[in-house]
């Protein structure tokens, strides 16, 4: 049987005009972004001699959606469980035959469905990049998959935070903090000797050229596969070679070199591995959330 929580929120959601508005605003924002980057205007302003407008537009849309999802998901999920607690309906749900995990999954799916709707509505805009060439259909499809995985992860984080919070506001705030923390912690390898090891190889053109995909993958720190930003960069680098022109730079160049390494490892592999990494994080958080959802329930005195 269809998860009742999801079915029921769909009823409520489709009844509200807000849903329609969110979709329209989201698509409109993407459309503005696409038109801006496809127009000749940016070629004159930004130094991007190696890039055609197609890849630039792809980059903008992908990064734009990546950022929007991080902003929207916690706001959307903060009330999922904490709101039921505030409204005192959580107990009513917990005494039914729907187990904790099913409740959590229902909560995730009700928000994920909305985000997936947004991402899919953005697909026609994404395909505008195909017009000027330089971007393949494969790019767009992998990009979409990646965004869906990211949306799922953000929603899972939001629902997890909501299931441990007493209030909606608190839940929203810690969701953003958790997302930030995941981004920061998984980027820690950059602070170690890791970038040095990478640049040593990348700057040695002969070595770099001889590198096999397997060797390149082995050189990338495993923690980075849990970093969504890394996946995003791999997607943008892909066959578009966005970072190539900066590779010789010192400082930032050292970090950018990681993506040159990702280039060797295969951008599809990296993007999908990062997507899988996000799903692993989601699964762990959802398991925890279904344990916590009952713990956080305290008598809220009404008298």
């Amino acid at each position, binding site marked *: 049987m269809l998860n009742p929580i999801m079915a029921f929120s769909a009823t409520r959601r489709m009844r509200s005009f807000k849903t329609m508005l969110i979709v329209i605003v989201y698509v409109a924002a993407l459309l503005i972004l696409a038109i801006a980057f496809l127009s000749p205007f940016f070629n004159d302003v930004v130094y991007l001699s190696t890039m055609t407008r197609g890849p630039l537009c792809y980059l903008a849309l992908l990064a734009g959606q990546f950022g929007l999802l991080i902003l929207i998901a916690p706001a959307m999920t903060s009330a999922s469980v904490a709101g039921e607690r505030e409204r005192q*309906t959580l107990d009513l749900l917990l005494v039914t035959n729907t187990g904790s995990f099913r409740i959590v999954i229902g909560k995730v799916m009700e928000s994920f469905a909305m985000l997936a709707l947004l991402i899919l509505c953005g697909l026609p805009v994404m395909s505008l990049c195909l017009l000027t060439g330089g971007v393949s259909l494969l790019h767009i499809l992998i990009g979409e998959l990646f965004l869906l995985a990211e949306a799922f992860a953000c929603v899972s984080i939001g629902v997890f935070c909501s299931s441990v919070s007493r209030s909606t506001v608190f839940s929203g705030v810690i969701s953003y903090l958790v997302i930030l923390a995941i981004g920061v912690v998984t980027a820690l390898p950059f602070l170690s000797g890791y970038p040095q090891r990478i640049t040593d190889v990348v700057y040695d053109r002969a070595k770099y050229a001889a590198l096999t995909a397997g060797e390149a993958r082995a050189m990338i720190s495993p923690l980075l596969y849990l970093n969504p930003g890394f996946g995003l960069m791999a997607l943008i680098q892909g066959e578009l070679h966005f970072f190539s022109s900066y590779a010789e730079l010192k400082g930032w160049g050292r970090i950018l070199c990681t993506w040159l390494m990702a280039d060797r490892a295969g951008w599809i592999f990296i993007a999908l591995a990062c997507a899988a990494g996000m799903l692993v994080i989601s699964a762990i958080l959802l398991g925890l959330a279904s344990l916590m959802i009952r713990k956080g329930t305290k008598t809220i005195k009404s008298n």
Partner: protein
Amino acid sequence: MLKIENLKKNYGSFPALKGLNLEIPDGALHGFVGPNGAGKTTTMRILATLMKPTSGTAFVDGTDVVKEGHKARKLVGYMPDFFGVYDSLKCWEYLDFYARCYRIGAAERKRMIRQLLELVQLEEKENEYVDALSRGMKQRLCLARSLIHDPKLLILDEPASGMDPRARAEMKGILRTLREMGKTVLISSHILPELAEMCDSLTILDHGQLVFSGNVDELSDKMNGNAPLDIRLTEGCGGEQVETAVRCLKEMPAVIEITQEEPFLLRIRLENGADVCEDVLRQLIMKGVPVCDFHRAPMNLEKVFMEVTQGA
């Protein structure tokens, strides 16, 4: 149907329940009374599997609510002392949602919702939004919700709070219908007389401890056996007569307390279980005290409640 065994619950170091034992037979309408903070809600939340007890357990129809929570949830219907409702949902959708949560099939859901709306007299409100209902109506809708999966045991936490007298009467009617349907009902309240009126049996709880459990007549009997005796002397009989009476009563070991309520009205309290009324009267008459009225002060349930729950 319901068997509570040595149930204990501590909130931190505060003991809210101190070893509660209780048994309720099939089909009983059982009242659960106690002052604020007695532990009624705590007990009910444990029975509804919303909380784990510190120790002890309870069985609903042989199912352990602590260990077999999933099974117990099918047997227990719970109505908390607040009503959580969602906005932008119609009455029937509200019930339908919870029916789905109990994994009830579509045809059965439809039948059940119609039946329940009829039971709580909300048929005309079927297509209205929940947040547009009055407080009493919401309460009745919540009652319908707790019945949606046809539970054997129904737990109602203060269902009559915030209801006007008419709604209370209707609630009583609904409870009677439920009893006819063969459900066992556990219902809590602060108001003993009201519960005594509609329940078969009662449990009085105070400070997490059971003070009394039994049927309503037993309770009044028990309390009346211990009620004070009022002794009225003939008006205007003189102070020395009253003094004689007091002296005489003081000599009797079974009398533990003497108060002079009015100039010619003495109220005495006898030792628990002492059966010495005739003796007291005979002694007084023999001493020449002009007794014109001699009777047990009637205890109403309000007083019983105060009496039972003080200093426990």
